[in-house]
């Protein structure tokens, strides 16, 4: 089955979908393999740790000369990077264009064998522990998790590090890793985003898996009510002296157009130098170096969600003042919304800014992977482009008003100065 959209080609092969954004090729290629895993698999009675499992598999000596997969592909100049989010585990494969198809084949071969050594498992545990340590002291991460927990509940897997805790990771043994690898090879849906045709074809040959079982019927909505308007968390010992303030919302999206409305709203508030809160909090009040925005779309238990945040780093002495301003701004936004001009300007800006993703093969693949990692329909790219091309401020305002019921301010406070 072939599904085409205006800016990328898509192929479906069993449980694997392959997306290839168009860009003139140079001598460099990138493929990102995305396993769509549910956010709670670390917290079940038989937990799975996909990024730990991948790190271990790649480091296990299992080929000629007792080399590992990473030994072999790095000899050809190929970099491998594992990343974990709440909705996926990703393996980025990048390097000289002529080396990537062979690297993909190599990775498929070690997946098929699924042979993990004790030494590699120990190294993988250390690498994931480092990631956990780093995240535990990152105010941006802590603020984001606090914001999500405000909308869900204190035990939500979305409000904690996706690969669990140090204690959980230290207990992961080779048998559990093998179970995870086997599940990744056939149980979870998979997407490969490839920078060129040769790489796409090798992914089809190497990773086309049986169609996974259909997802369970729609579960209950993640969002709880009532939602607190302000939450605070404190970073542990050794965290930075800075505070992170994150304003945002987590909402169920009725359709793909809702996701676009969220993206435009977030951009208009903090996505550019002339966005509303960048002007106020940086240019007028000099309370921060700048705002950072994030819009994440994901599908969970049959429902589509969107998380939109505007975050900023502030000194401890300024955090209360920033919270007051954001509370007032949030109230104004709820009452009056954005102006027609703000809706149009941000829509056009986002549409034109799509060209920026063509600045490199890696950027193009990363952007497409970001759109698709939450398991949202691959047609989202085309829907997004169409909605941005012909923005209707009235419709955008109506959609965003629903998403903003309510918004939350989350503050992660670092150590005192």
């Amino acid at each position: 089955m072939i599904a085409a959209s205006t800016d990328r080609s898509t192929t479906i092969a069993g449980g694997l979908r392959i997306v290839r954004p168009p860009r003139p090729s140079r001598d460099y290629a990138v493929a990102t393999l995305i396993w769509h895993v549910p956010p709670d698999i670390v917290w079940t009675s038989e937990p799975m740790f996909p990024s730990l499992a991948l790190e271990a598999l790649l480091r296990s000596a299992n080929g000629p000369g007792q080399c590992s997969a990473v030994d072999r592909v790095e000899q050809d100049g190929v970099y491998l990077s594992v990343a974990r989010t709440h909705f996926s585990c990703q393996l980025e494969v990048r390097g000289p264009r002529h080396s990537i198809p062979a690297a993909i084949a190599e990775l498929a071969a070690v997946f098929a064998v699924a042979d993990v050594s004790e030494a590699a498992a120990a190294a993988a545990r250390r690498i994931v522990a480092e990631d956990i340590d780093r995240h535990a002291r990152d105010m941006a991460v802590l603020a984001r998790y606090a914001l999500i927990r405000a909308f869900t509940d204190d035990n939500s897997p979305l409000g904690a590090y996706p690969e669990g805790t140090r204690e959980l990771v230290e207990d992961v043994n080779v048998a559990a890793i093998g179970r995870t690898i086997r599940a990744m090879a056939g149980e979870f849906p998979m997407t490969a985003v490839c920078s060129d045709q040769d790489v796409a074809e090798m992914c089809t040959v190497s990773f086309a898996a049986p169609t996974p079982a259909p997802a369970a019927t729609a579960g209950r909505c993640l969002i709880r009510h009532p939602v607190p308007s302000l939450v605070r968390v404190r970073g542990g010992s050794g965290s930075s002296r800075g505070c992170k303030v994150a304003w945002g919302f987590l909402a169920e999206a009725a359709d793909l157009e809702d996701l676009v409305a969220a993206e435009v709203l977030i951009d208009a508030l903090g996505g550019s130098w002339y966005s509303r809160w960048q002007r106020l909090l940086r240019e007028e009040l000099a309370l921060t170096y700048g705002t950072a925005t994030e819009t994440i779309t994901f599908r969970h238990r049959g429902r589509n969600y969107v998380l939109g945040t505007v975050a900023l780093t502030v000194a401890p002495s300024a955090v209360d003042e920033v919270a007051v301003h954001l509370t007032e701004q949030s109230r104004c936004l709820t009452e009056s919304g954005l102006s027609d001009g703000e809706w149009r300007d941000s829509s056009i800006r986002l549409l034109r800014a799509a060209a920026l993703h063509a600045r490199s093969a890696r950027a193009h693949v990363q952007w497409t992977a970001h759109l698709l990692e939450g398991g949202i329909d691959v047609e989202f790219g085309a829907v997004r482009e169409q909605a941005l091309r012909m923005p209707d401020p009235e419709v955008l305002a109506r959609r965003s008003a629903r998403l903003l019921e309510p918004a939350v301010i989350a503050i992660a406070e670092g150590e005192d100065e």
Partner: protein
Amino acid sequence: VTQLTHITIGKAQGVLIQEPGVPLVTTHLRVATGGRDDPPGQAGLAHVVEHMMFSGTRQGIGGIGQGLERGEHARIIEAGGGFVNATTSADSTCYVHAVIPEFLGTVLDLERARFAATAFTDEGMAADKAIVLRERFQRTRGRSFGDATERLLAAVYTDGNGYGHLPVGDQDGVSRITVADCYGFFSQHYHDAATSLVIIGDFDQAAVTEHASRLLDAFPEAAADGAVDSQSGDTGLIRTTTREEIPGSGRSQVFIAQPMPPLGSADFALAEMGAVALAHGASSLLQRRLIGERGVAQAAKANVVARHRSASMGVLQIAPSQGTTAEEVIAELDRVMCEVVMVGLHEIDRERARSMYASSWLAEDDSLISRAASLGESLQVHGGIDSYQCHLDLIAALGPEQFDRGVRFWHQPDRRAEVVYLP
């Protein structure tokens, strides 16, 4: 098929690379001045000037009409979906844009307007100084171990050579800066001999050549004493080993900084290659030995973090694993490095490093913005782009002795600065 055009206006240089089919054009305007030129007591002046370049102009585009307002430059670019940024390092200040091809003319007009009709005001200065201090906070104390680079620079560059402070500036230095200081700095350092421009993308070669020439013409002729200082050497560099310990940091982290060869020298590429051999990729030497075999670390990195024209600085960053002290991980690191320096890199490690280093270069070359930055650096440091274009040949030709020399830069146990964060 790419087409390359060189332009020279006075002593300013430009390189235009036409690359058909790319829906994006990037511009990289580089001025060879930065934190190194900050006067004593005014750390951050070059950086404040960079910020002030967005604070408005005396005349409108093409010298016609009213000047641009503060922030208007960025507003125009971003309204077109473009990317606009500027950075200040020790030796250079760079103004970067990436836009759809239809906006290239606007970018070049805006650039000319701000460099030909600069307007620094007290009001803009007050705002920019406050924002610069927020930036400093975000880059240093605002994140875990964020002050490590500042501590290492101060320890490695011991003399008043201008490299011992962060280009972002500090509280005292920034607070002393006046509008007159900014004008003085601008007129002294923003001249043709210090300026280069790189444009890459799909554009009309003839029209853009003319447009870019007009932009470069906005830079005045360098004064007789305004030539860019290119002296190199290791005066003012660390001569012993120092250690600073920072307790109460929550967890251990070890930073070891060592002097590296000057940017642009043949040895500089070897030092970069050494970093790749040691810690880039999961099968690199330190990752394999410290994380995998010995189990004493959970992360190991090596990077040339300060690329300076007279002497650079390389930093090893090691995160000890649980149950391992900072002292133990440093001892293990030294054991591994001693062994490598004595025996030399194994052929497998050498060829892996060669492939990975070439791969990093290909990644940089594949990105329009990174390629423009590298070409700009090459113009500034070498006066041309031949060294950039021949980089892969250079990597392919490196022999075993050169690899070993590259690794040795990362093991100077008698001459390094250690910053150790303790739990």
